[in-house]
């Protein structure tokens, strides 16, 4: 059996197909992958890129919690997630989550839950760098406990 690292906070580019492969399994009929990418516009301003900051040790534990909760709520066969930090350009992947289940309804719901939990409970922050040279921390929501 190949050991796959299934939860990662990484500075390197994310390959969504590897995240999908890490969640895949012959016993699963369906897999759902969510991929978040850097948009070229935010509130009408042209974005050059984003800087992501992370409280890494806490974020890795939170990813473990998300996987455990997804497995508790749905019959998950495989689940994998990666979140990037550091400097990202427009079009690059910031986050990818994949879930495989025997039935597709479960895979959709568990993947949706996981990305929502990543956005709500991971200690990560992003600063937008605009084409006009300005930059600003993106307004977020209080971290969920």
């Amino acid at each position, binding site marked *: 059996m190949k050991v796959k690292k299934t939860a990662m906070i990484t500075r390197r580019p994310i390959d969504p197909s590897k995240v999908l492969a890490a969640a895949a399994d012959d016993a699963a009929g369906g897999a759902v992958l969510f991929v978040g990418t850097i948009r070229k516009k935010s509130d009408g301003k042209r974005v050059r890129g984003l800087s992501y900051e992370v409280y890494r040790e806490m974020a890795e534990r939170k990813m473990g919690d998300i996987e455990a909760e997804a497995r508790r709520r749905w019959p998950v066969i495989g689940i994998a997630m990666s979140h990037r930090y550091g400097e990202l350009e427009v079009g690059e992947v910031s986050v990818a989550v994949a879930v495989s289940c025997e039935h597709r309804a479960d895979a959709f719901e568990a993947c949706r839950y996981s990305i929502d939990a990543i956005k709500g409970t991971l*200690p990560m922050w992003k600063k937008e760098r605009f084409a006009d040279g300005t930059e600003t921390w993106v307004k977020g929501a209080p*971290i969920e406990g």
Partner: protein
Amino acid sequence: MKVRVLYFAAARDLASVESERVPLKERASVGDLAGEIVRLHPSLKALERSVRFSVNFEVAERDAPLRDGDEVGVLPPVAGG
């Protein structure tokens, strides 16, 4: 006792420090620490209402007790993904 405080994102910008050890009286709570860091770094007042805290990697409410050696994160509103 002392706790280790880590500042992130806008909180780090305002405090101009990444991490520090903060002395507290015995049986201090997260709320007590919140007051203490604003005393140490008055500019953090701007984040006072939106910031949350983690204690040893779990989000903690203001009335949660602190112990010597705890690692406390000062967490502005998050925006990952």
